[in-house]
């Protein structure tokens, strides 16, 4: 692996040069109390001091709403048009290692069998610049699910803030190309030990012990009691870096229209409601159970990976403050 250093005063010039070159830069930006990944027009708009963005970086490749295709009537025929691929690269800047690790799951889900055209078209044009966490909060639990706060998984380039500037690990070919294109911002450096600059994130549960316990948890009698505060807003899933469920919706008039893919969530009653009116997940507790088992059991069975990366967004964003950490520990207690 190659290592570089960006001096503190150069990071601004680097970002502004990326923007000037026509690349789209998606970076953390403050909005009221929260920080969101947003397209930025200059380095000044970027929030550099934050623990976690309110929503994950998945929207760069799996947006809340995307056109799958448009259609138009032409006499008796219907003509379909694929959406154009993005012309310019998108740089996701300042992605936390948990979000990076989430791409292990997202790429397995979207690209492994029958690669998803729309995901791939965006993913191929996106460069992920990770940023080591120098601090965490009580809702961070990446280390409980096998991820470290300086994990390089899913990142093309990985930054770690040191007293000399940003230490950069060049992880992928994609990252290397970007560094070569903007080489005048970087200095050569040796490999360093990142530990000193990395947050100490406490382990909140033992995922291997959970694995044994959770396989028989479907009929656990405390699902209802532990999920009573959930009023089904769905924010947990929408802000989750690994939730991939979507709905397909058409918007059309007499001459044509578009078919959209939009985020969906198992927290909503309509998610499983049948046309007959029957709903196999009638109660919120059954929807909550599905969410927890999906994260810690179902994807492990299907793809041999957990689909929780310990980012803590579902806890921070929950209006009723339900905690996935408390939930997991309750399951462990039995």
């Amino acid at each position: 692996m190659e290592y570089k250093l960006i001096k503190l005063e150069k990071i601004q010039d680097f970002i502004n040069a990326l923007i000037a070159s026509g690349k789209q830069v998606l970076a953390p930006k403050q909005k009221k109390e929260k920080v969101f990944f947003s397209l930025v027009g200059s380095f000044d708009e970027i929030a550099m001091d934050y623990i976690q963005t309110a929503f994950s970086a998945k929207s760069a490749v799996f947006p809340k709403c995307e056109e799958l295709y448009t259609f138009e009537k032409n006499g008796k025929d219907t003509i379909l048009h694929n959406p154009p691929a993005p012309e310019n690269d998108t740089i996701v800047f300042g992605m936390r290692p948990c979000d990076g690790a989430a791409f292990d799951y997202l790429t397995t889900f979207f690209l492994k069998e029958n690669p998803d055209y729309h995901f791939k078209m965006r993913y191929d044009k996106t460069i992920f610049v990770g940023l080591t966490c120098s601090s965490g909060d009580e809702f961070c639990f990446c280390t409980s699910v096998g991820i470290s706060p300086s994990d390089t998984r899913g990142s093309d380039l990985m930054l770690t803030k040191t007293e000399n500037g940003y230490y950069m690990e060049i992880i992928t070919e994609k990252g290397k190309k970007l560094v070569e294109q903007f080489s005048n911002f970087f200095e050569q450096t040796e490999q360093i030990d990142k530990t000193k600059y990395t947050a100490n994130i406490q382990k909140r549960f033992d995922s291997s012990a959970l694995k044994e316990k959770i396989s028989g948890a479907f009929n656990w009698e405390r699902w209802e009691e532990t999920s009573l505060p959930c009023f089904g807003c769905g924010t947990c899933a929408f802000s989750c870096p690994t939730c991939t469920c979507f709905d397909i919706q058409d918007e059309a008039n007499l001459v044509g229209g578009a078919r959209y893919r939009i985020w969906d969530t198992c927290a909503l009653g309509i998610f499983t409601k049948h046309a007959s009116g029957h709903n196999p997940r009638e109660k919120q507790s059954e929807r909550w159970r599905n969410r927890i088992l999906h994260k810690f059991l179902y994807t492990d069975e299907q793809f041999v990976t957990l689909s929780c990366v310990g980012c803590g967004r579902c806890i921070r964003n929950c209006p009723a403050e339900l905690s996935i950490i408390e939930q997991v520990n309750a399951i462990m207690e039995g």
Partner: protein
Amino acid sequence: MSELINKVSQFFSSGIIDLFIGYKKGRLGEGKPAFFTKPEQLNELIFDENCIVNLAVYLRKPELKKYSKIGVLANFGTLRALLQLAAENQIADGQYLILTVADGKVLEFANLKAIEEYVANNLPKPNPERIAFLKEIESKSREERWEFWTRELASCIRCYACRAACPLCYCEQCLVECNQPQWVGVPPTGMGNLEWHIVRAMHLAGRCIGCGECEAACPMEIPIGFLTQKLNMAIISNFGQVPGTKLEPDYALSTFKVDDKENFIR
């Protein structure tokens, strides 16, 4: 707090309630909703001005049907929501045991009428910051207001957290879930988002009790509470109707008088 805990504990031991919905310590000093089924859990029970979640939202949960009598620790927004729900025939007198804490004393409401009196005597003045913000929006031109709301609502992800957090959004099937015909566009595009938020605000016009839970639940920080607040202010000034203060239905947008001057009403 010990008076409250003792009182609720007695309600449990004398079999008056088998579930108590209150608050326990949450993040950053806030209170979070908590469900107590045994008196020994009550040491976690708290109540102060940071307990803001409107607990009336939970009363429609089917999971609660198995409890024979439920006690609710009500903040002011919850009390108003209970009155509005009663006015709309969604809850009955005596169905719940309602408590609040005022000036450090635990108040137990004998019936909904007692809540009506309490609310009438304690209605707070509108928050000056919110009024100032509304004035600021009102002072803009029509085009600027349109630009403001289309920009704010563009970030809506249509998670419907606003609907889920609202104690007055209790429809079994929401209009936005109706797809034959599809009245409101579902994708979170500009037009669909505007339609959704206009529909939501209109369905709460004259019914919104102003607890602010929709805005607090919005994960995108959209100031949606101002839409219903503005509509309510218009209804209060034109019809004198204040939602969540009366047990009788008093709802500007769905009442009529048979002696109305207009012909169409007859």
